[in-house]
């Protein structure tokens, strides 16, 4: 190959230096902020030790954005925020304004363009989510659709700060749980073992690697119809789908094999209590695209019980810790089943070894 045909060698920049892309007031006061308050939902006001101030307006987005949407955000950033903006980890857009006067017209501009302003303080912020049918190779549902449907229903809770504390929700399209932990998590739960195409396994899958991938050792090598393949002990199988990525002929998805489950009480922050994982409170909900109404119904039941009964600054999981799980299931009219008693490693730590009881 001569040099003219050589592809370009990449410049190995790594993580770009953010300072050229940072709002000048943020840059000038880097590491020198004194305090903040929230003048209204969706607006943060930060005061620097230098005396400079900045007003941040936060708006929800659809995360999967077409270039038209991004250019619209850019127009608003040019007009009201000196040509800079940033995103939060939950895909909210943030615009930094150097005077409080700019926030009103900016909010108006955002609302006119269809972006809700909120997601600050004790509100329900944007649901962090995964790729789904749009792009993932193992998706049980379409997180973008679930999120759009839920955020439509929770619009008021995004634009108002009326919850006892912040609510951070997540969705995941399979049990690998890429969406992470949340106060409320909506995750796919497979309900059927993989269907195996024995004609393809030997050619497509590295069988020992697939056997090793199974969390419950339910997969073993087998000869099927004279061909080396794999078989699944369906009594042991927990339908997690972990074998599908290394072995696509073990199809875990299908119209009858995906249900949605709801988990509550996950928390990332160390504030008050230590971080916690979310816990299973409902399962077997239909994967009812395009609007998933059964999911929205239960999420709202949980959310409004918490809104009604939670004390100021209690996160959802802390609220349940106070009132007890018996009352949680009573207040939300959800079932407590044998499947909610953990049997994974370390499960004993989740059992009640005391006479502390809620009646």
């Amino acid at each position, binding site marked *: 190959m001569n040099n003219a045909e050589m*592809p*370009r*060698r*990449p*410049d190995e920049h*790594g*993580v*770009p230096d*953010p*300072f*050229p*892309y940072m709002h000048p007031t943020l840059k000038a006061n880097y590491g020198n*902020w*004194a*305090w*903040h308050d929230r003048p209204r939902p969706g607006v943060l006001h930060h005061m620097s030790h230098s005396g400079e101030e900045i007003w941040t307006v936060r708006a929800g987005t*659809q*995360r*999967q*954005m*077409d*270039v*038209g*949407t991004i*250019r619209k955000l850019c127009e608003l950033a040019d007009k009201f925020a000196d040509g*800079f903006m*940033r995103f*939060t*980890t939950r*895909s909210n857009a943030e615009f930094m304004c150097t005077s409080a006067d700019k926030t009103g017209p900016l909010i108006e501009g955002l609302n006119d363009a269809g*972006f809700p302003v909120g997601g600050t303080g004790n509100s329900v912020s944007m649901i962090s989510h995964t790729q789904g*049918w749009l*792009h*993932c*190779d*193992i*998706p049980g*549902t379409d997180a973008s*659709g679930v999120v*759009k449907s839920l955020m*439509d229903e929770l619009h008021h809770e995004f634009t108002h700060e009326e919850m006892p504390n912040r609510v951070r929700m997540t969705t995941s399209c399979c*049990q*690998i749980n*890429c969406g*992470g932990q949340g106060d409320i998590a909506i995750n796919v739960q497979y309900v059927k073992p993989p269907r195996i195409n024995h004609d393809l396994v030997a050619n497509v899958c590295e069988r020992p*690697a697939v056997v*090793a*991938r199974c969390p419950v050792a339910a997969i073993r090598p087998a000869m099927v119809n004279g061909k080396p393949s794999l078989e699944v002990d369906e009594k042991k199988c927990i339908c*997690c789908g*972990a074998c599908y990525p290394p072995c696509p002929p073990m199809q875990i*998805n299908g*119209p009858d094999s995906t249900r949605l489950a709801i988990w509550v009480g996950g928390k*990332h*922050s*160390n*504030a*008050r209590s230590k971080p916690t*994982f979310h816990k299973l409170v409902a399962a077997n909900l239909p994967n009812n695209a*395009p609007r998933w109404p059964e999911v929205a119904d239960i999420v709202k039941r949980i959310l409004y019980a918490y809104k009604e009964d939670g*004390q100021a600054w209690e996160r959802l999981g802390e609220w349940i810790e106070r009132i007890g799980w018996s009352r949680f299931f009573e207040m939300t009219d959800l079932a407590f089943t044998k499947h909610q008693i953990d049997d994974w490693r370390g499960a004993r730590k989740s059992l009640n070894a005391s006479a502390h009881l809620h009646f």
Partner: protein
Amino acid sequence: MTKKAHDTPLLDELKSGPWPSFVEGLERLANDGDTPHARMMTDLLGQLEHSYEERRGFWKGGTVSVFGYGGGVIPRFSEVAEDYPESSEFHTLRIIPPAGLHYSTKLLRDMCDIWEEHGSGLIALHGQSGDIMFQGCTSDNVQPAFDALNKIGLDMGGAGPALRTSMNCVGHARCEQSCYDEVRTHRMIINGLLDEMHRPALPYKFKFKFSGCPNDCVNAIHRADMAVIGTWRDDMQVDQEKVKEHVAKAGRKQMIDTVIAMCPTRALSLNDDDTLDIDNKSCVRCMHCINVMPKALSPGKDRGVTILMGGKRSLKIGDQMGTVIHPFLKLETDEDYEKLFEFTEECIDFFAENALEHERIGETIDRIGLANFLDALDVPVDPNMVNHPRTSSYVRTDDWDVEAAKWFEHKQATTK
């Protein structure tokens, strides 16, 4: 000729309602005249509608990369390409954003122009690890798209068994609670280990995340193999006049209910004159009281970071949180930064040499025991690493005195 649109009655239902609709965005791209991205998005909408009907995805992986790098492109080939040929290749480029997710509108517009020319025009801001996800690119266009992005200063992120793209909270840039320079730390570590990202050779993925304080806004403890969390060692800073103002405004009952009673270690008490009595030795730096009264309270001045390791999602042994490996590392001088970087290098080396294939570092630590991991990395044990000492009596203690001597020696060395 403009490509004819597929009927999408299910997706159309996601166009109504007050939240911004991703379907409307996909349609805007599909309707963008006779352009390659419009044709691609027309068929993409068709395939997505098909997924909504059949309730399953139709993408499979493969191998696509750019010259010089071994990862960062997520290949997607359609399993139903005969019906939706224009979106038969719909790869994603994972690109590293500026640390802290700051953008100028110029950078965003340049990204849009490049992606309109070479890709689908659909950009996800951002993925769960922190990448900009340029979604929807043909195999042929991956290299020119990357070249164009690389020329404006952007670089490929991580995928596969490799160091992954990282994230830091807004931190120093706009938060008074930030306890260290997240941008410097994030860039020092990731850019120092970049080879592990671009040429995947680790047993499995390795993620870092950087949060400026224990509020952990980037979910580091849950998500990262190594979480770097800002904290402080001395007394928190208190402005008693501001405390009094808060009590006057909120009322004593609310102050007691939401601040005093919620302190996890009972380290707070309200004095008769409405000032705050703080038992700093019992404070665990949870951030709660500071969150409630950001004008009156702030972190102390002797700041640094806590390192936790082993956080991960479900595969394979179940969700795990990171646990404390270094309770406190000062992060002020160049030497402090170098020491932290050396530690991360040692961790990556240990991971590369000792983890089994497809094993995360948290699983390795679980398998060999935390004490062995600490031994290997020459990290001294510390009671902050455990909730409480062991309760199981099944342990050999014949070298107890040697270990105890180490403890007292270490204690003497660090309290000098």
